């Protein structure tokens, strides 16, 4: 339990996990469900309960595609993808090292790829 860190993550995410009513629509929507050990609604719940260290150590946070379907569908504006992204940022801040340099990213990036997906890719590949 790390309440302080959980609070920080909430601040980064800018969402209030307490608004979650555990409907599971995010998880129902998630295309990466099968490759995540924690699912979007669990992310929210764990951050709310302060179980952030487990979350930060999980592989699941890097398997999220940042497709933002859960943001789109969440009826309570909890927006799990933001929470996940915030956890990633928290991890990144702790490690502080980049494994992947921007110039290493080839020109094969799709122009229509959302900004957040690109950022998310940076985070993933520096693991």
């Amino acid at each position, binding site marked *: 339990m790390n309440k302080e860190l959980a609070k920080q993550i909430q601040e980064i995410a800018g969402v209030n996990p307490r*608004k979650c*009513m*555990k*409907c*599971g*629509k*995010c*998880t*129902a*929507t*998630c295309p990466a*469900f*099968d490759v995540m050990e924690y*699912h979007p*609604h*669990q992310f929210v719940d764990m951050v709310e309960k302060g179980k952030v260290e487990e979350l930060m150590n999980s592989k699941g946070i890097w398997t999220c595609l940042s497709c933002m*379907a859960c943001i*789109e*569908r*969440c*009826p*309570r*504006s909890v927006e799990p993808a933001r929470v996940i992204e915030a956890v990633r940022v928290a991890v990144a801040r702790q490690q502080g090292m980049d494994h992947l340099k921007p110039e290493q990213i080839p020109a094969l990036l799709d122009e229509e790829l959302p900004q957040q997906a690109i950022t998310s890719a940076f985070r993933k590949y520096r693991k």
Partner: protein
Amino acid sequence: MQRIGVFVCWCGSNIAATVDVHKVAETLAKEPGVVFSTNYQYMCSQAGQEMIQEAIHTHKLTGVVICSCSPRMHEGTFRKTCAAAGLNPYMVEIANIREQCSWIHKDMAEATEKAVILGRAAIAKVHLNAPLTAGTSPVTKRALVIGGGIAGIQTALDIADAGYEVDIVEKKPTIGGKMTQIDKTFPTLDCAACILTPKMVDAAQNEKIHIYSYSEVESVKGFVGNFHVTIRKKARFVDETKCTGCGDCTTKCPQKNVPNEFNLGMDNRRAIYIPFAQAVPKIATIDADYCTMLKTGKCGICSKVCAAGAIDYQQKDQLVEEEYGAIVVATGFDPISVEKFDEYAYSQSPDVVTSLEFERLMNAAGPTNGTLLRPSDKTHPHTLVFVQCVGSRCDGDGRGKSYCSKICCMYTAKHAMLCREKYPDTDVYVFYIDVRTPGKNFDEFYRRAVEEYGVHYIKGQVGKVVPENGKLKVQASDLLSNEQIHIDADMVILAAAIEPDKSARPLATMLTASMDTNDFFTEAHPKLRPVESPTAGIFLSGACQGPKDIPETVAQASAAAAKVLGLLAKDNLTCNPCVAQPDEMMCNGCSSCEKVCPYGAITYSDKEFRGPNRTTLIRRVASVNPAVCQGCGACTVACPSGAMDLKGFSNKQIMAEVDAICK
């Protein structure tokens, strides 16, 4: 100089926990004019009220200040208390130290200081209060019910039963409302039509009830006891007095492709139509949007087949003016449009339906004559997925409603159960967030659906529905087993949230009745006056006030009727004595006040006055009809000379409050 008594209430710990009530009473005792000051645990209790009455006698009080909860709560109570002790009730002022002080402040010193200031303002006002006596105005003994659904019908029947005239205005060609479209009712599963249609007939046959069908309220003027309402009778191009409802025209009309709103557009009707067999009044109506005759002037078949000669293509909208003493709003609800929730593919597949559409698909009078068939290919569905909370309980996503629509859990249980009962070969899944079944026999009903009928209730939501190869691929979560589920369904039924009817908002403006942010009418008090609007003489019946099921609606409808009867039983109403009053000596006769008065309460007359040096002057001066004036005060500001003032909220009283607060 007034002799003022100050009474500081603890409200148990509601006030006393944050406000030092002793200190407030002590400090206010030192104010000029205060001859008695005390505090007590519950001023509104019997003992508290007796304490006030005793002080009025002992200290010969001429004014009373009560520091307590909001005047909206107990001003009336304390006025009565003081009146019983011989003090004019308008010599009482309330300092709101609960809602506007103890409940919002945490620091005791700050809250106490503020309570003292609020007390001082009330004292300053009481110093300038004058005894007021209320006048009376007569009550028109006739009620108007707006909306002819089950709520409106029940209210009208109850009022008529008590012997008063009542009119129903219904915008559709028939009364009956949403309940006419419902197949069975929960938790008893009796047929909706069987219990509703007799009531519709009762209403039609009751000589005290007049039904304005296919009509709308055009304008409302006046005030409690004396409403003046203009009703627009929309042209239906059929003479109501002649039409026998034989239905010949509706079978001969060549325009066959009009979407039938009664079946939610799932089948068609003719351009001239009677909504359904049991419609009341059973009179045909021509749909001007589709009628060839009205559009092109060529056809006229219905006119030819009508034996009664009731067809009148020249008919125009008609405005009817009526007087009422009370108005009941029973405008009901509508399911929201689910188009914003396209993850459920409502617009992509006809097999995704709303619950109300499903209701029609199960109904014997529905488009499939009661056989459940998939709309797309008219085949028997085997796997059905019900999705709960579509658009309900959404917060901040801009798509849905923040509230729980209340009825969906129960009707979905009903649908699932009926489905399994009629078609035991079906698999029925219900995806829910919570199952909410408070109500008599409600939870038992839901459990039966699970236990006896084998409906699969899954805690989780549907993420998306994709139509594929004639199936609906449903992707959902099962939170309890932490799994993502994929179901190939034949039909998906969406429990769409309900919202107030669109006509409610403009109506509220006409009635000056307040609404909440969701467009539900606000009640005068959420607990103690649930069927009255804060606007006097306006009553609320049914789902226009908030989501309700049928028994609740009927209960509230009868409650509203009871309140209306309480009003109509009076010959006269006591008026609010806080009305505008001009000082004739200062009035310029300029008509500024008259121009802004929303009630037409101000008139002018030429009056003789004594001028200087024994002369006589004739001056045009304003006078206010106290029975018509509602005391808004618009005139007091429009008046440049300050001749117009408002009793109970006079310029000097308000300025004294300002002074007390700012000092």
